[in-house]
């Protein structure tokens, strides 16, 4: 049958963003169960070189829209291009990796195509009984888990970072299909004028394998330096509790929790964070949790796999030193 599951590739600076390969992994596994195919969609200008990597990871076709007006992301232009492409080719589903860009794009596309969007899925399965995708996603900031379906075709879904394994390298190649869509500047409202980048490249919190996170126990902004040092040795990202962010010690982008980011690293090391429920919902699904606190009764110490009762100002530098020593 003509069942096809699309993954929209996100790229920046000529590089495919890693979570796209997770979305491809999710789509491929559904496609296999459905007896369908996986295709990747690349929007942009001169972005066709991404096709090789997408093919290797399981995309049978790459639909490539090459257009000057797609050079820079715009909610209007990208919505227009995807809506036109979907109307013409009628895929079963379009899968995106959840990101700032797709949180901007997918809802608008859902409204335009009058179809269902299921954001931030952690599981996707094919339901052969009705030929639709059965997905799972957290609701109420992780306090409950919902099983959901989209009505309408194509179903739109986004994958939560790190919830799906990257599609393995099959060594395949994709058929590259150039798709012409007429897009003019009037379609391209909401165009990004500029990306401001921090001086030092940082590991993105939601995509990090290891996160070192600090709370009110750090006492001040300068003290966060000991976490930055530990993170540098571990190749980790640095997170923060809301107390630390609201005190101005760290930027909001670092906040973990209900009004911050939901993270699921392999290892989460919480330093001087008590573990209020609004913090816990942001990190409770981390694979391994370490809590460092003076207070053995802090809620996070009970949730942690390893709870270190210590003064963080003594323990964290000792941990960094020990790591450095053992890495030599």
């Amino acid at each position, binding site marked *: 049958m003509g069942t096809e599951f699309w993954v929209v590739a996100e790229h920046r600076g000529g590089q495919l*963003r890693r979570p796209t390969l997770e979305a491809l992994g999710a789509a491929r596994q559904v496609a296999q169960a459905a007896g369908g195919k996986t295709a990747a969609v690349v929007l942009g200008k001169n972005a066709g070189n991404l096709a090789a990597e997408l093919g290797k990871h399981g995309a049978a076709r790459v639909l490539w829209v090459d257009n000057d007006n797609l050079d820079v992301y715009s*909610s209007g232009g990208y919505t227009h291009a995807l809506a036109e492409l979907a109307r013409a080719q009628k895929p079963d589903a379009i899968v995106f990796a959840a*990101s*700032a860009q797709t*949180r*901007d794009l997918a*809802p*608008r596309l*859902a*409204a335009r195509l*009058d179809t*269902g*969007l299921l*954001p*931030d899925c952690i599981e996707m399965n094919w339901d052969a009984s009705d030929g639709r995708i059965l997905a799972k996603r*957290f*609701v*109420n*900031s992780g*306090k*409950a*888990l*919902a*099983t*959901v379906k*989209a*009505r309408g075709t194509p179903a739109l879904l986004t994958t939560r970072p790190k919830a799906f394994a990257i599609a393995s390298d099959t060594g395949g190649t994709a058929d590259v299909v150039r798709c012409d869509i007429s897009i003019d500047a009037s379609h391209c409202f*909401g*165009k*990004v*004028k*500029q*990306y*401001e*980048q921090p001086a030092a*490249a940082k590991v*993105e919190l939601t995509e990090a394998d290891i996160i070192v996170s600090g709370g009110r126990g750090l006492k001040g902004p300068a003290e966060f330096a000991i976490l930055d040092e530990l993170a540098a040795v*571990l190749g980790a990202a640095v997170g923060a509790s809301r107390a630390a962010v609201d005190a101005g010690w760290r930027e*909001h982008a670092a*906040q973990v929790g*209900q*009004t911050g980011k939901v993270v699921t690293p392999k*290892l989460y090391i919480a330093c001087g964070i008590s573990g209020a*429920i609004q913090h816990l919902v942001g990190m*409770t699904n981390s*694979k391994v949790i*370490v809590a460092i606190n003076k207070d*053995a009764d802090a809620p996070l110490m009970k*949730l942690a*796999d*390893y*709870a*270190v*009762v*210590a003064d963080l100002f*003594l*323990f964290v530098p*000792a941990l960094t030193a*020990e*790591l450095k020593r053992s890495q030599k």
Partner: protein
Amino acid sequence: MKIAVCIKQVPDTSATLKVKPDGSGVDTEGLEFVISPYDEYGLEEALKTKEKMDAGEVVVLGLGPERVTKALRSGLAMGADRAIHLADAAYEGSDALATARALAAALKKAGPFDLIWAGKEAVDDGMSTVGAAIAEFLGIPHVSEVKKAELAADHSSVTCWSEVEGGTAVVEVKLPAVLTAQKGLNEPRYASLKGIMMAKKKELVRFTPADLGLGAEQVGKSGSRTEVLKVEPPPKKQTVTKLIKDLEPEAAAKELLRLLRDEAKVI
């Protein structure tokens, strides 16, 4: 300048939730409800804009059952001028798209508005969909997850800063537009006693789907494009906490590293 703010009423963020045994949803019995945190940032920003211009109007609107009146009154107490409540049994079961369609229709009827704020996501269903969908239904631009917004001097456009992975995106759109609020935008005010008193006298209108020209197939379950089949408690991680204590920092560090390497195998 006329500014609208979409307000969703959600369970208090500090509440522990129970799901109903039949899996149909979260048990709301006895729960406290609040304005979804991101909507408060939107409202604060709208009030600030109006105060700065010393002119205009801020309207709060919400779709949901009777109890939503309380959230709208809280918005009025913070300083909004009037409120619109989409309250009718026909709206029950509306998903994000059905909700956005109804809100867009209400905005058309009560507008036109120059600026519309919504939260970047509602912290109950976490769909992050309604804001952008409203913009699409109204045929106007939107910007998501705005952490800073600056109106042009002639009020014809707004420049927005949004956090994206690894940096900040700067986007300028023409008004009217929908912006969705991210934390960092401002510090929402508390309602004053005077504000609470005044809120009781402010106008609160209700619109049924018929008032908005919406048919039965456009609202509630039939207007929805997603369905929730089951809601269950999240999988609980079974943790047996290993305690490291009463050790010198170095010995404790060695012990933790040993456990992370040999037992947990995560570094």
